[in-house]
């Protein structure tokens, strides 16, 4: 036997991709939306973004220190601080982009603490969180402070957001919605900026179109069928560009931790999110439903994965081997 056959155990091919590289790509891809938000709403948007990011990063850092101290007492376990993998920055940035610009800063910081401490670290840190921390924090704030979270009146814009206006049966300017010259949360207004970021992520291979594609197509079909406007391109475009649909579909539903890992499961997940968002927007009492749809979908991910788990070659469905 020659030396040629002596191989080490796998893996043989290693990728240089690491968590902080992926997170950095997401941060860069969110920059157009964040930058447009600051341009659109003024410097206070920057303050909200910085405070939220500071709160998430600081929470993760302090939690790491606490874990370290527990170990020194002889109980608990060592845990390398995970603050350097940039995931806390992504969570903070996504949360800030989901807040209105008039949000009191302490509420934004509280949301950041909730996202990292309760949703992420208490469940075991990155990779163990059962729902998207930024969206969970947004829903926490939405239930806790409904008036502050719905306060979309600011120096730049007053009046209803485009989705609320649509719900009330008024006309909206689709071009303004596409470019982002409307009221809303900091990061959701400009469909153009979000699409630029999404293209970047797709080109870098960080995300693929399975979830966003099936999500948006399902939602579009749902709104066409049940929206009460028939096939009206202006209404359809307003529904697609309005609210947090693009932000949610490209940046939140595709979160590696809280999406299904099976390929069929990802389509199921996207279709489910599209249906839920459609139901919430068309039949619900509020104008928006993306965040609730995504965190509900996150909860169903284990079931979807179980249902769509591919069968290994030579095995029957259910994990048993074929018997001869």
């Amino acid at each position, binding site marked *: 036997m020659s030396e040629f056959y002596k191989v080490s155990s796998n893996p043989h091919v290693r990728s240089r991709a690491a968590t902080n590289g992926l997170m950095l790509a997401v941060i860069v891809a969110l920059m157009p939306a964040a930058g447009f938000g600051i341009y659109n709403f003024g410097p206070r948007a920057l303050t909200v973004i910085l405070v939220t990011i500071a709160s998430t990063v600081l929470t993760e850092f302090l939690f790491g220190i606490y874990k370290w101290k527990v170990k020194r007492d002889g*109980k608990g376990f060592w845990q390398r601080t995970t603050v350097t993998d940039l995931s806390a920055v992504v969570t903070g940035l996504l949360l800030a982009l989901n807040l209105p610009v008039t949000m009191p800063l302490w509420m934004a910081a509280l949301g950041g603490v909730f996202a990292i401490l309760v949703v992420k670290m208490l469940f075991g840190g990155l990779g163990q969180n059962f729902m998207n921390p930024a969206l969970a924090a947004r829903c926490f704030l939405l*239930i*806790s402070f409904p008036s502050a979270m719905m306060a979309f009146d600011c120096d730049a814009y007053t009046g209803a957001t485009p989705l609320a206006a649509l719900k009330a049966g008024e006309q909206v300017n689709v071009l303004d919605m596409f470019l982002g010259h409307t009221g809303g949360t900091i990061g959701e207004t400009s469909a153009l900026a979000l699409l630029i970021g999404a293209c970047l992520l797709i080109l870098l291979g960080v995300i693929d179109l399975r979830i966003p594609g099936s999500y948006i197509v399902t939602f579009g079909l749902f709104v066409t069928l049940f929206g009460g406007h028939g096939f009206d391109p202006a209404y359809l475009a307003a529904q697609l560009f309005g609210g947090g649909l693009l932000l949610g579909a490209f940046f939140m539903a595709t979160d590696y931790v809280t999406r299904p890992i099976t390929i069929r499961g990802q389509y199921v997940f996207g279709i489910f999110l599209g249906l839920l968002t459609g139901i919430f927007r068309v039949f619900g009492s509020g104008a928006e439903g993306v965040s609730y749809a995504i965190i509900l979908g996150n909860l169903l991910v284990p079931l979807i994965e179980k249902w769509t788990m591919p069968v290994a070659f030579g095995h029957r469905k259910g994990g048993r081997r074929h018997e001869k």
Partner: protein
Amino acid sequence: MSEKELRAKNSVPAGAGREEGIMNRAAERLYNGIAKENPTFVLMLGMCPTLAVTTSAINGLGMGLTTLVVLALSNLLISLLRGLIPNRVRIPAFIVIIASFVTVVQLLLEAYLPDLNKALGVYIPLIVVNCIILGRAESYAYSNPPIPSLFDGIGMGMGFTVALTCIGLVRELVGAGKAFGFKITPDSFEPVRIFAQAPGAFFVLAALVALQNFVKAAGARAGRDTSKIGSGCSHDCMNCGEKGCSQRFYDDGKEE
């Protein structure tokens, strides 16, 4: 195994108090119910009312006291009747006794405290199926004399009351800025409304259980004895006649 042997086995280890006199034993039952085996924070029983009615401290207190009364009286009566109730039909017999007391308490509440009755709503009749009451009847009152059983019921009820009042107080304070109905926070405080709603109950319960475990772990490190006492289970599954016990099947290496 005969009923008599079964009862002898399930009763508290003799050293725990029979020689020390009945008052010591009663005090021990009270301490056990409130601290060592707090039904909410340690045994995790009766979660439904714990999560559902603790929107304010008053509601928690009312629910806890109502349960306390039912628990103490049903424990006393079941203990008195323990020689008469056949082993096979003991659960239906317990339920009948508990349901009678719940009906009494509910009629009294409707007559004298209609506001509280309205606030607690369907959770008053549901005390009948509260795990704490059935659990204490099954694991303690059915195999122990009346006076300790009464104090076991009072202790467990007080533990439940303390727990519910704590949860209700925190939720009311954070979720509405009030304590026992009085506004005590400054106007600038914006209540975090989620704590007054259902998700907040889970957050507060989990935080208080964690706090309780933290204190307990600190006590154990300092050398204090934090083991449970006399819940009716001797952890000797090999020689236990109990058939419906969950530990029997999950305890490592002791499956049948």
